[in-house]
């Protein structure tokens, strides 16, 4: 038995029930004064010129890193995405097994958080600005690859088969039949990755580059809320304007929503696209020069410090089942929260015109605050543990998924919802059945991608969650226990593969009703 589409959308929100039961036992409430200080500081950000100067410089570095990391990840992602497409291999050589293998292999780079990639690269190449860019490009490239190959699989193959039947050579047939319908989804998703890259570049600050993340992290650790807010306001302004520009371009170029898989013709403004792409090239080189990015530095490898002889036994003796269980629990809780609460909140506020604005504001805050900040704020009033960590991760990802859902529902058009309203339906039911039901499958499929990301992000809130792969990873990094690190990363990769396999099956069921 399959639940009806609109209910499917609300299913993940069931996670709220156990959470609401458990939450009262977690409240200690001793830090409301600190929360108050934090909120008060929002209206009195520091205007010390020393602070502002280093923030603005940091922002420049962060934006530059984001741009370069994004460009590199798109290049890697498109190439790897094509290489892991079953359709492509089937058309070219008649078998799809290379695609399966490449897909599996790509789970490894994707399963490791960019911060960890950075610290690992630092071990072999030394403190080089280029590793900040590569640290973003590797996991993002692998993620883009997955989306590209999934997009390709979901496209209609009729044109391809027609061209092939007419005797067209396979490469040419692939390019003309699949290229144009792939483009809109790709560009839409690519724009979204730039927003993500800005958030990631903000978290990366360890590379001797400085950057806004550096400032935010240090002000957070020393609880300098006034200085912290100066950075947050600056980041908010940049984040919202970037989102607005990308959104405007998507509408202008007739892009479909980012998780909509329906085929839409090529953007009308092809020339603009081409021009923008051409302008990116000198820009990337300029930024690369300004940040002194030297790809050649990646080739000078240095030996790792020697491993402890008894290290492997120690690494195997870690409490693996508990670590894995807690990490999976944290990921599932956070993902269900983020995926389920977004539509629920939109439905709740549907009758009030200001409700949606309020939600947009809260979601922007969710995207803005790095998860470690939210985790620290939550700790001021809640006891540490998996649930507190899940709330922090869930809030951040709710901000991202909520915005996507809203965009998707705007793109879906108001006709059906208005028809239901005119038919006498209440505002909530009209929204649920008129707009959300059509989006449910693609939204949930997108939520499955997001769960991948949340698994990686468990590293950054590992310290709140108590025991888990994330906190163990931080612990092993601080002891330079490379044997433990290797096993931990393997565990992350295995979990990612498993999750991907499950979500692939779920997607296939969801997208093909």
């Amino acid at each position, binding site marked *: 038995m399959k639940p009806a589409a609109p209910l499917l959308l609300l299913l993940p929100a069931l996670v709220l029930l156990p959470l609401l039961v458990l939450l009262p036992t977690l409240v200690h409430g001793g830090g409301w004064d600190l929360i108050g200080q934090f909120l008060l500081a929002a209206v009195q950000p520091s205007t010390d010129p020393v602070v502002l100067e280093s923030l603005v410089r940091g922002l420049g570095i962060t934006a530059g890193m984001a741009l370069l990391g994004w460009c590199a990840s798109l290049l890697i992602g498109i190439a790897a995405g094509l290489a892991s497409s079953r359709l492509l291999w089937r058309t070219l050589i008649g078998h799809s097994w290379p695609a399966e293998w490449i897909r599996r292999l790509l789970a490894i780079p994707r399963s490791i958080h960019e911060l960890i990639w950075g610290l690992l690269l630092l071990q072999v190449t*030394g403190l080089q600005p280029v590793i900040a860019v590569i640290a973003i490009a590797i996991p993002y490239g692998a993620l883009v690859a997955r989306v590209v190959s999934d997009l390709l699989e979901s496209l209609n193959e009729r044109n391809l088969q027609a061209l092939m039947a007419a005797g067209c050579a396979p490469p040419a047939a692939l390019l003309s039949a699949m290229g144009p319908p792939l483009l809109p989804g790709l560009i839409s998703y690519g724009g979204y990755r730039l927003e993500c890259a800005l958030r990631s570049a903000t978290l990366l600050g360890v590379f001797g580059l400085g950057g806004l993340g550096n400032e935010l992290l240090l002000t957070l*650790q020393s609880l300098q809320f006034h200085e912290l807010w100066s950075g947050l306001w600056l980041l908010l302004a940049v984040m919202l304007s970037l989102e607005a520009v990308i959104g405007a371009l998507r509408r202008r170029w007739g892009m479909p929503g980012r998780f909509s898989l329906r085929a839409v013709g090529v953007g009308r403004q092809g020339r603009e696209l081409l021009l923008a792409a051409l302008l990116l090239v000198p820009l990337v080189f300029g930024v690369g020069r300004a940040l002194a990015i030297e790809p050649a530095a990646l080739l000078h490898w240095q030996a790792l410090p020697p491993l402890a002889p008894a290290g492997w036994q120690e690494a195997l003796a870690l409490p693996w089942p508990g670590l894995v269980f807690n990490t999976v629990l944290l990921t599932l809780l956070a993902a269900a929260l983020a995926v389920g609460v977004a539509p629920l909140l939109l439905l709740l506020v549907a009758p009030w015109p200001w409700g949606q604005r309020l939600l947009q504001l809260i979601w922007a805050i969710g995207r803005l605050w790095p998860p470690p900040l939210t985790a620290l704020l939550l700790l001021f009033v809640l006891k540490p543990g998996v649930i507190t960590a899940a709330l922090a991760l869930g809030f951040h990802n709710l901000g991202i998924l909520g915005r996507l859902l809203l965009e998707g529902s705007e793109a879906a058009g108001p006709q059906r919802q208005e028809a239901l309203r005119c038919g006498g339906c209440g505002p909530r039911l009209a929204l649920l059945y008129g707009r959300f039901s059509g989006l449910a499958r693609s939204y949930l499929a997108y939520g499955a991608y997001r769960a991948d990301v949340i698994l990686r992000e468990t590293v950054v809130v590992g310290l709140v969650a108590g025991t888990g792969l994330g906190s163990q990873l931080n612990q092993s990094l601080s002891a330079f226990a490379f044997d433990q690190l290797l096993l931990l990363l393997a565990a992350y990769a295995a979990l990612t593969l498993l999750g991907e396999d499950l979500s692939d099956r779920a997607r296939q069921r969801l997208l093909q009703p």
Partner: protein
Amino acid sequence: MFKFPQSGRERSAAVLVGIGLALAPAAFPSLSPALAPLPAVQAQQSSKPVLRISAIPDQQPEKLNRLYGLVANELSKQLGVKVQYVPVTNYAAAVSAFRTGNLDLVWFGGLTGVQARLQKPGAKVLAQRDIDASFHTIFIANAKSGLKPVTNVQGLSQLKGKRFTFGSESSTSGRLMPQYFLGQAGVKPSQFAGGAPGFSGSHDATIALVQSGAYEAGAVNEQVWRSSLHNGKANRSKVMAIWKTPGYPDYHWIAQPDLDKRFGKGFTNRIQQAILSWRPSNPEQKQILSLFGAQQFTSAKASAYGRIEQVGRQIGQIR
């Protein structure tokens, strides 16, 4: 396929949007005129060597920026070479960057200093503050936790089953030594509530989290605890000290082994003499010393940190 814009107006609009898209992310780098010079790379490229200094991140950021700007200026003046401060936000990253030779002179903590010297044989311990020879950790507790001040290390056994947080994983005063003393009282990390201690990430966060009650107890650096009491960040009615550890050596300056080769004979010695010469009578040096919270620097020996290494091995932070 592509439908190109026909009219001139459409075309110019297209160009404008294209430029807008391309420049949107770049507008921000261009805002900052002095886009951070990249210390790590620059030094390798230029013919004149640059002394790259850094510090583990355990201070307030505006203080770090001010402090290391001043230190760089002062060292540059005294040594006659260009000195650059490289910010690093992660303890492990500071150690690794020292191993890979990207940092020349680093202000390390006790544990990170030992880790750095083990990974980079030949690195030299130059100096410590007057307070670093015998540094202390303060165990603190929330007033409502029911924990009582104790007079000896065995009293720490009351922390079993409580929610407890350390500072950063690599901190000597916030993690290594407190874990060692807890071990002497028979408390294993797995015996805290939740099966593991927390790692708040910094001394300031430890104080705030214990004061709020998220954790019932924690361990902090004595210097930070005192200044928090002094500036009112720590509220005596909500959080109290329950035990002060015996002294152990902590923070110190460590230099790369090859500085004499790169900067000229006796250069490492000159750095050491420069740091040791700072006195409160000189206005700039007075600022540096007061930001470091010290009267002056004294020379330090690697052998003084033998005990830290021993404890580090025992706890598994050094392998």
